[in-house]
């Protein structure tokens, strides 16, 4: 059976679904018996979700570009 270290090495490929069927079975067998790795996997996935959500623009950010930025860009182009 995989050790925890070996499972961690496969973690990225497991989530990317890049493991072979045999590798995936070994990975999941380890998870069934290792509470530490199950909990680590849960927080690893949570990290990815939080990263994605944290960098979405706030709901109140307007889609239109602010007028002062438009003018700054137009001036920057003229001065180049």
């Amino acid at each position, binding site marked *: 059976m995989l*050790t*925890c*270290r*070996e499972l*961690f090495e496969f*973690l*990225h*490929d497991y989530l990317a679904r890049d493991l072979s069927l045999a590798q995936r079975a070994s990975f999941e067998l380890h998870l069934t018996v*290792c*509470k*530490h*790795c199950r*909990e*680590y996997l*849960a*927080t*690893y996935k*949570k*990290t*990815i979700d*939080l*990263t*994605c*959500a*944290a*960098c*979405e*623009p*706030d709901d109140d*950010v*307007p*889609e*239109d*570009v*602010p007028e002062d*930025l*438009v003018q*700054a*860009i*137009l001036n*920057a*182009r003229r001065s*180049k």
Partner: protein
Amino acid sequence: MNAPSEAILVEQLRAGSDEAFESLVREHGGVMLATARRVLGQDADAQDAVQDAFVQAFRKIDTFHGESKLRTWLHRITVNASLMKLRSSRSRPAVSIDELLPQFLEDGHRTVGEKRWSDPGLVAAERSETRAIVREMIDCLPDDYREVVLLRDVEQLDTKETADFLGVGLAVVKTRLHRARQALRTLLARRFAGVTGC
């Protein structure tokens, strides 16, 4: 003013039309600003990056041959400008990535268990507060790792696109992303446990 078709707009830009450039800024500026905000976090830095991106786009318009949409071409320039800004405006020293990776016993098993994150401290946190914490922790990562996280997990580029952007191989992107996610997980676990700083 009605927006001209993309091909006509590009021709006008090549001819140096002020009106076409303003049209480009008004049509694409909002989306580009949103992209820069995702990468940089700070609004002032994002506005600077968008300004730089438009100046570069105008200079390089002769290199746009229509293989991709103008919007895609501008997105790439914006991400590049944002990454340049990111590197030049680091507000704190980066952490050592190795110290944040999981530790194992000699037999390859874990030394410690993990605390679940579904505890009240995280669930009760305001969404905006959590977002600010995550952003702060991303900014603790060394540049090579921060950039991969931002391109893959924030901008949602695939591994090939990210590799092309950074000029590295696919295996390097995969390794850096995995290590960056592990380090970020450790930083977040510490912060959710009440430890401040990186």
